C-alpha cells in the first residue's frame, strides 16, 4: 500500500531523533513494519516477550523503567524509547516497564532496527548512548567520573574568535593576542573552513620564513576535526588524542558555535570535587582560597550537566564547603595560636543536611568544651569572625538570620547549648520552633567527635518520644502545604499580577526535610541528611517501606527539578530562583511533579496522624 496513506505515523517518526536521520524510503519501510499496541494501567507492566524483542516507541501515555530491585531508571513519555537494551545486547530484558498512564506504543521489529543501525551511524550512536545512559542510571549510587559523562557545552568557550579566510596571518595573530587565546576559527561565508592555531603559526609561517601578509587560508589547518555540542567531554578527549590536536571547533549544523581546548578540559577536570578539595587544602591564604572557590559554580554546572543525582550534587557541594570551612579554621588558628580548649564548628540547615545548592548562605555555630573565660571568649570571637568573613568572601554570604558562629549567641559551651536545646524541646513555642528547626539539622565540621556526640546524644534523648515537642514541630511544618489544589492542579504563587510559579524549595524540598526531621527526632536517629534519615527510618520500620521509598523518590525528583530549572534560568539569563513555571516543562514532567507533590501531601497527612493525632 501507499505509505502516504498513514501520514500520522510517518510524521510522528520523522520528527523524532534519531528517526529524523533516516531518509524517506527508510521511514516508509519503518511504517510498514510497525505494529501498534495499547497499554493500560490495569495491567501495571508492559509484557516484554523475551522471544520477540522489539523497539518500543512511546506514542502517548507515560511509562517508567525500573530494574529488578524496583530502582527507578528512567521515566518515559511521548517520543521516548524502551526495549533497545535487549536489542543491542541480545540479552533478555531484566528491567520492567511500568505503566503510569494508558498509552499507545509502536513496536518496531528487530530486523528493521538492525537494518537502520547499519544504514545510519547517527541512529546507531543514539541508541548506543541511550543504552550507556541507562547503564549509568542503573549504577547511579556509585560515584561517577565526571569527565566521561559531562558534556562539551559545559566547558567550551562560547562566542568563539573567528576570522575571514582572506585575512592575513598578521591580523589573525593580533586578534589572538588581544583575545589571549591560542586559536582562531577561519570562516568563509559563515561556514567553518579551517582553524589557525599557535602551532600552525609556528610550523607553517615562522618556520617556513613566510611573512605576516600571508592569507590565513594558506596557513590554517583545513577541514579541522570538529565535534558536536552534545558530545561528551570524554569523546572530545578521545578525538584530541586520536588526531593529536589541542583545539576542537564545536559545530552545530555546520555553524561553529565554540571551541574546546585541552586546557578547557583540564580546567573542567580540576572542578571535579576531589581535585577541588585537594586544591583547597593546599592553599595557604584567604586570597587564594577565594580564587579557588570561584570554581564552585563551575563544579555545580558540571555536576548538573553530568546528570548527577540532586542528592549527590548536594553532598558534593557540601563537602567542598566543609573543606573550605576547615581550611579557614586551620589557617586562622595559625595566626591566632592554639585554641584554649577543645571546640567544634557546627554546621546547621542545608550545610548540616548536606544539601547545599547554588548561592547558599552560611548557618553555623561554635560548640565549646566548657564555659570560656574572658581570654577564651576573645580568642573564639576572633576565630569565628575571621572564618565567617572568609566564608562570606568565598561566596557563602552572611546568614540573614544571623545564625553564625560570629554571633556570640551561637558561640556557647556544651552546657549552654544543652540548655538552649532543652528549652526548645520542653517549651515548644511555635515561633521559637520555627527558627529552631534548622538547629536540629546539625553536623560537626571541625573538632573532636566526642564533644559533638555529647551534645547530639543529649538532644536526641530529649526529643525521642517527646510527643508534645514533636506535635509542636509537626504543627509548624504543616503550616505550608505542597502547591496542589483541587483536582491536582498546580497552585502558582503570585506576586501581585506577576506569576512566580511553583516554589520548589519551600513547598517541596523543605517540606520533605521537615517530615524526615520530625520522624528522625522522634526515633533519636543521628543522621541529618534527609535521604539518609529516610533510609534509616525505613530500616527501623518507623516509616512503611513503600512510603519511605516514595518520599525519597519525591525528594530526589523535586530537588532535581529545582536544579535543572535553575540551569534553565541560567542558560536563559533569567534570575536564579526556586520558582518553576509549569508550562516550561513537558507534560510528563508535570505529571511526575504532581505525583511527587502528592507524595509530599501524603507524607504530611501521615505525620499529622502520627504526631498530632489528627487528620
Amino acid at each position, binding site marked *: 500500500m501507499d505509505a502516504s496513506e498513514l501520514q500520522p505515523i510517518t510524521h510522528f517518526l520523522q520528527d523524532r531523533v534519531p528517526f529524523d536521520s533516516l531518509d524517506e524510503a527508510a521511514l516508509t519501510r519503518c511504517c510498514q513494519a510497525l505494529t501498534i499496541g495499547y497499554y493500560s494501567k490495569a495491567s501495571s507492566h508492559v509484557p516484554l516477550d523475551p522471544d520477540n524483542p522489539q523497539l518500543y516507541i512511546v506514542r502517548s501515555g507515560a511509562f517508567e523503567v525500573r530494574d529488578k530491585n524496583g530502582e527507578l531508571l528512567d521515566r518515559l513519555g511521548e517520543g521516548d524509547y524502551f526495549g533497545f537494551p535487549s536489542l543491542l545486547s541480545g540479552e533478555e530484558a531484566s528491567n520492567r516497564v511500568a505503566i503510569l498512564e494508558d498509552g499507545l506504543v509502536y513496536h518496531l521489529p528487530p530486523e528493521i532496527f538492525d537494518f537502520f543501525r547499519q544504514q545510519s551511524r547517527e541512529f546507531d550512536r543514539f541508541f548506543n548512548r541511550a543504552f550507556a545512559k541507562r547503564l549509568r542510571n542503573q549504577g547511579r549510587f556509585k560515584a561517577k567520573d565526571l569527565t566521561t559523562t559531562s558534556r562539551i557545552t559545559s566547558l567550551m568557550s562560547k562566542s568563539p574568535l573567528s576570522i575571514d579566510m582572506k585575512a592575513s596571518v598578521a591580523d589573525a595573530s593580533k586578534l589572538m593576542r588581544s583575545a589571549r587565546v591560542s586559536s582562531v576559527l577561519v570562516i568563509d561565508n559563515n561556514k567553518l573552513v579551517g582553524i589557525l592555531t599557535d602551532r600552525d603559526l609556528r610550523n607553517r609561517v615562522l618556520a617556513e620564513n613566510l611573512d605576516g601578509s600571508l592569507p590565513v587560508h594558506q596557513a590554517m589547518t583545513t577541514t579541522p576535526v570538529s565535534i558536536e555540542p552534545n558530545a561528551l567531554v570524554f569523546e572530545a578527549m578521545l578525538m584530541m588524542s586520536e588526531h593529536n590536536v589541542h583545539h576542537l571547533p564545536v559545530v552545530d549544523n555546520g555553524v561553529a558555535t565554540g571551541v574546546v581546548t585541552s586546557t578547557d578540559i583540564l580546567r573542567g577536570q580540576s572542578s571535579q570535587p576531589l581535585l577541588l578539595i585537594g586544591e583547597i587544602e593546599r592553599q595557604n591564604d584567604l586570597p587564594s582560597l577565594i580564587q579557588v572557590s570561584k570554581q564552585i559554580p563551575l563544579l555545580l554546572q558540571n555536576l548538573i550537566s553530568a546528570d548527577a543525582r540532586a542528592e549527590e550534587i548536594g553532598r558534593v557541594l557540601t563537602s567542598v564547603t566543609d573543606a573550605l570551612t576547615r581550611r579557614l579554621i586551620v589557617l586562622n588558628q595559625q595566626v591566632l595560636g592554639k585554641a584554649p580548649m577543645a571546640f567544634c564548628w557546627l554546621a546547621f540547615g542545608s550545610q548540616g543536611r548536606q544539601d547545599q545548592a547554588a548561592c547558599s548562605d552560611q548557618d553555623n555555630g561554635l560548640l565549646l568544651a566548657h564555659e570560656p573565660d574572658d581570654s577564651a571568649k576573645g580568642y573564639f570571637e576572633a576565630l569565628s569572625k575571621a572564618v565567617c568573613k572568609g566564608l562570606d568572601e568565598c561566596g557563602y554570604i552572611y546568614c540573614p538570620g544571623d545564625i553564625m558562629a560570629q554571633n556570640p549567641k551561637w558561640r556557647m559551651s556544651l552546657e549552654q547549648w544543652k540548655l538552649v536545646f532543652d528549652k526548645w524541646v520542653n517549651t515548644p513555642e511555635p515561633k521559637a520552633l520555627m527558627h529552631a528547626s534548622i538547629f536540629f539539622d546539625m553536623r560537626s565540621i571541625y573538632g573532636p567527635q566526642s564533644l559533638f556526640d555529647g551534645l547530639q546524644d543529649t538532644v536526641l534523648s530529649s526529643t525521642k518520644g517527646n510527643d508534645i515537642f514533636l506535635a509542636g514541630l509537626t504543627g509548624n511544618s504543616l503550616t505550608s502545604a505542597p502547591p496542589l489544589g483541587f483536582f491536582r492542579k498546580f497552585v502558582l504563587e503570585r506576586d501581585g499580577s506577576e506569576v512566580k510559579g511553583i516554589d520548589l524549595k519551600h513547598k517541596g524540598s523543605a517540606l520533605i526535610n521537615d517530615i524526615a526531621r520530625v520522624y528522625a527526632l522522634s526515633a533519636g536517629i543521628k543522621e541529618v541528611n534527609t535521604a539518609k534519615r529516610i533510609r534509616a527510618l525505613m530500616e527501623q520500620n518507623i516509616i512503611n517501606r513503600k512510603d519511605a521509598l516514595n518520599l525519597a523518590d519525591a525528594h530526589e525528583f523535586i530537588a532535581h527539578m529545582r536544579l535543572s530549572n535553575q540551569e534553565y534560568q541560567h542558560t536563559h539569563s533569567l534570575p536564579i530562583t526556586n520558582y518553576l513555571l509549569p508550562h516550561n516543562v513537558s507534560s510528563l514532567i508535570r505529571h511526575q511533579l504532581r505525583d511527587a507533590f502528592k507524595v509530599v501531601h501524603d507524607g504530611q*497527612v501521615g505525620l499529622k496522624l502520627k504526631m498530632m*493525632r489528627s487528620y
Partner: protein
Amino acid sequence: MDVQTLTYLIVGLTFALYIGIAIWSRAGSTKEFYVAGGGVHPVMNGMATAADWMSAASFISLAGIVSFVGYDGSVYLMGWTGGYVLLALCMAPYLRKFGKFTVPDFIGDRYYSQAARTVAVFCAIFICFTYIAGQMRGVGVVFSRFLEVEVETGVYIGMGVVFFYAVLGGMKGITYTQVAQYCVLIFAFMVPAIFISVMMTGHILPQIGFGAELVDAAGNGTGEFLLDKLDGLSKELGFAQYTEGSKSTIDMFFITGALMFGTAGLPHVIVRFFTVPKVKDARVSAGWTLVFIAIMFTTIPALAAFSRVNMIETINGPESKGVAYETAPEWIKNWEKTGLIKWDDKNQDGKIYYANGPESEMKIDRDIIVLATPEIANLPAWVIALVAAGGLAAALSTSAGLLLVISTSVSHDLLKKNFMPDISDKKELMFARIAAAAGIVMAGYFGINPPGFVAAVVAIAFGLAASSLFPAIIMGIFSKTMNKEGAISGMVIGLLFTASYIVYFKFVNPTANVADNWLFGVSPEGIGLFGMMINFAVAFGVSRVTKAVPQDVVEMVESIRFPKGSGAAHDH
C-alpha cells in the same frame, strides 16, 4: 420569617462561619501569624477548651435535669466543675512535663508496658464511645424539633452531619473554629436566659434573677420569690420540693465524685493542655476556661428554675387546673411531633394537665428544656433558631474531639503499634476514618436507644473514666512504687466492675434500677467512684506482691514531680 426558615438560616450562617475560619486559618500563612502574635492567646485557648469541654450534655440536658429534679441535679454542676479544677491543678502540669500527647501513651510509658498501653487504649475508646452516644442524642433532639421529625430521624441526620464535620470537613481541631463555636453556644445560651430573667424578675443577670422577687407584666414586684414559688408549685403538684433533694447523701456524694474524677480522666480534655507550649500558659488558659465554663454553669440553675415555673404555668394555667388542648400553646404541638412531649387525656376533659403521679397527662422529656424554653416564654423566633445553632455547636465541637481520639487510638495505638507495624500511612488514615465512622454508627445506636437522658449517658462515661484511667494516671504521677502489674489489673477490674454494674441496671434489668437494689445505695451514675476505689485497692494489692518498678522509671517519676537540672526552672 417562621422559626424553621430562621433556624436554617442561622445554623447555615454559623456553619459558614466555622468553614470560613477553617479556610482562612489554613490559607493565611500561620507562620506569619506566629511571628506577629507569638502563639495562641491564653484567653482564646481558654474559649476553645471550654467549647471542647461543654458538650451537648451541658448545653441541652443539664438545665433540663436541674429543672426537673431540682437540687439533686446540681451534682452534675459540682462534679464537672470540681473535676476540671482537679485536672487543671493536680494533673495537667505533670502530664505536660512527661511529654506525652495522649493518656494511653503516658500510661504505656509510665508502666513500661505495651499491655498497659493497650488496656488504656481500650478504656479510652470505651469512654469516648459512651460520651459520643450522649452527643448524638443531643444532636438528634435539636434536629428533630427544627426539622419537625421524629427524634430517631433527627439522630440519623445528626450522625451524617457529625461524620461530615469530623472526618471530611477538616474544620476540627482548629482553635479559632472552636473559639467561634464557644461564642455561638454561649450567646445562644445566655440570650434566652437574659430575656426570661428580665421578663420574670426584672434583672438582667439571670444569676441575680434566680434569687430575686418575681415581677408582674407591668414590672411591679409581687413580693414572691422565684424559688419559693417553685417550691410551692412543686409541692402542689406532688413533686419533691425543688430546693430539697430526694437522693440519699451517699448517692449524691458518689455521683459527684464519679463526675469529678471522671472529668479529670477524660482523654480528650487532657489533650488540650498540651497544645500550649508552656506549662504556665496551660495553667492560665485553664483558668480562663474555668471562667468561660462558669458563665454558663452559673446560669443553668436560674434558667432551670425560670423554665420550670414558666412551663408549669403555661400547661396548667393560672388556676393550676390545666388548659384546654385546643388553646394550648403552639410549642406543645410542635414538640409533640418529635415524640418528646406526649399528651394522654386520661380524664377525657380535653385539657392538658401536668403533675407528679397518675393524674398527670403529660410526658415531657427533660432534654427539651433548654431548646423549648424560648418558645415557652414566647421569645422572638430568632432566639429559638439561635438556640438550635448553639446546641449544634456544643455537640459538634465535642464530638469532633472525641472522634479523633477514638479513630487515632484505633489506627495508631491498636493497629500500628500492636497488630500491623508495617502499615502504610494511607492505610492508617483509612482505618482511622473507618473507626470514626464505626464510632458514629454505634453512638447513633445508643442515641436512638438511650440508656438515660443525655446528661445521664454522659455521666456514665465519666464513671468509666473515673474507675479506669484516673487512678492509673494519679498513681503514675504520685506513686513511685506502682508497677505495671498493679496498674493493669486495677484498670481492668475497675472498668469491668463499673461497666457491669451499669449494664446490669441500665440494660439487663432496668426495672431493678431502684435505690433498694443498689450496692450501698449508690446509683449507676455514681458507681464510678466505687470502681475507682476498687481500682486503687487492687492496684496497690497487686503491686505489693509483684516485681518492683525498674530504677529508671522511678527516676522518671521523680523527675516529673521534682524538676532538677533542666526544664522550666532554667528558663532564661
